């Protein structure tokens, strides 16, 4: 946890005298062109979702809609066909919320407690344990798909939201532990010692000393888990039943459900509905996320 500041000193405003203006122009030119390339897919998606199919067939995917219509949005939300069920994404949107909220809360709480124990109540072998947990962050999930499918079946959680919550907690706790552990390492042990002198116990130290200073890393962990779980497809496709499928699985099915004509405007509206929660979170909280994440991830 070094250099948390967003604008640290480093001043590579490396100007080179005479060529300054041209260099400056080049910097902006490249940035603006790149920004246009990066924005193009989003813009095209938004435009397309507001057009009628006639306009799409006749026009250009970067042209703004001439006659704006929300029909595709209504359809994607409430009446588009996903396999045989023609009631749009709305039910799946709620499925994802019912999945994300408990999975994020549980995994972040566990991560905070683990980070606290691993840094302030150290014991023999804790580093090894932490290393073993970190490896869990990086495994290809294909290696656990088959055993997890059987385990969920054995404990009666196959095809349920509760089962999917459990899966996301198991593989999310590695990351949240990593975040909190790296954050708490930088909290001076003296604070903990002083609290202990005053007779504070395990829980009091956690709630009164550590938790109040933890909000930067709580934001990181919550955003990380929220986007990761909301955007997950592999676990959702593998373990959710028809009624508990998350929105990413539904989006993929919607796009692949062909009822004759391909409705690109509905596909794009559905993609935007799926992307909306994470985009909004990113727009409003992204700054805090990056600040915290970079401080933890890029040391040295």
């Amino acid at each position, binding site marked *: 946890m070094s250099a948390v500041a967003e604008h640290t000193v*480093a001043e*590579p405003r490396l100007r080179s005298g005479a060529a300054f203006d041209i260099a400056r122009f080049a910097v902006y030119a490249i940035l603006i062109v*790149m920004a246009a390339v*990066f924005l193009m897919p989003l813009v095209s*998606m938004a435009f397309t979702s507001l057009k009628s199919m006639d306009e799409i067939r006749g026009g*250009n995917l970067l042209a703004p809609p001439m006659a704006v219509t929300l029909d595709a949005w209504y359809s994607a939300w409430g009446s588009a066909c996903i396999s045989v069920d023609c009631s749009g994404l709305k039910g799946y949107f709620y499925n994802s919320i019912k999945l994300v909220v408990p999975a994020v809360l549980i995994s972040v709480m566990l991560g905070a407690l683990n980070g606290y124990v691993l840094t302030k109540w150290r014991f023999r072998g804790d580093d090894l344990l*932490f290393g073993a947990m970190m490896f869990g962050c990086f495994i290809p999930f*294909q290696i656990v*798909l088959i055993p997890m499918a059987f385990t969920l079946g054995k404990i009666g959680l196959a095809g349920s939201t509760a089962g999917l919550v459990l899966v996301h907690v198991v593989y999310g706790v590695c990351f949240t532990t990593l975040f909190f552990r790296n954050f708490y390492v930088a909290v001076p042990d003296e604070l903990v010692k002083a609290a202990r002198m005053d007779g504070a116990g395990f829980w009091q130290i956690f709630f009164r000393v550590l938790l109040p200073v933890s909000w930067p890393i709580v934001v990181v962990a919550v955003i990380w888990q929220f986007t990761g779980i909301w955007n997950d497809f592999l676990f959702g496709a593998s373990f959710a039943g028809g009624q508990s499928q998350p929105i990413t699985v539904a989006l993929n099915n919607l796009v692949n459900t062909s009822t004759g004509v391909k409705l690109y405007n509905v596909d794009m509206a559905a993609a935007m509905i799926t992307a909306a929660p994470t*985009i909004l979170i990113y727009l409003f909280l992204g700054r805090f996320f990056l600040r915290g994440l970079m401080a933890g991830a890029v040391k040295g």
Partner: protein
Amino acid sequence: MASTENPAGRRSLLPKFVLAPSVLMVLVGVYGFMLFSVILSFTSSKMFPRFAFSGLDQYERLFSNPRWSVAVQNIFIFASLYIVLATALGLLLAILIDQKIRAESVFRTVFLYPMALSFIVTGVIWQWLLNPGLGIERVMQSWGWESFSFKWLVEPDMAIYTVVIAGVWQVTGFVMAMFLAGLRGINGEILSAARMDGAPTRKIYTRIIIPALRPVFLTAFVIESHLAIKSYDLVVALTKGGPGYATELPSTFMYTTTFTRNEMGLGAASAVVMLIALAIIIVPYLYSELRNERRG
């Protein structure tokens, strides 16, 4: 890194009790399940696990399977281009953004937002943009470039490169953010000293700044290769592994083999190979990270 060694702490069972559920989850969910998959890969399991030991049969079948060869070839093409392009573009954008520019936060936001999207959303968008009939091809033609042709999405030899395009678009902002954090962490005094000595800008970058970013290159490489090997959703949404099985990756191979073709032993063997490939990259990295930390 100071440790809190106090007698009360060592004796108390409460902290270990608090840690226990997570340790149990990781022990079973990561290591137990890994072992389970390894064992399955040595059996002739089809639709259900059968513990009839079959030696290395599944691995022999795997390595002689044409779909798997295509998947392995594709992961090398995809991962190397993805890593090189995302790193180069990310570094370039970070350096440009670091030139005390106006509206820095707007640029950062624009480059970063794809990171917030699901790979399924990314796949759906790019499938639309790269659509031979209505996509970018049509745009170029309507702008007067009548002969413009861009059909990679439906050409077996080129389809894997569409996955690279979409993947790079999604991850570059994240790599940029890592490099930007690295640039902002470089000691300003060294740079001023170099400038005082009259070193030209280009030299300052090639001799001082880029070498100082070595740890960021390493982190970026590890994260990118991890994402590349795990890539599954993007291919499913963009090409469904097609045309034919031209864009098959190990991850999609594992899934269809296990759950669609009911070849569980073979699927498990492919997952084990993926795990080994990733471990070769991750384990040394984690080991050196944890060691540096202890020394630091």
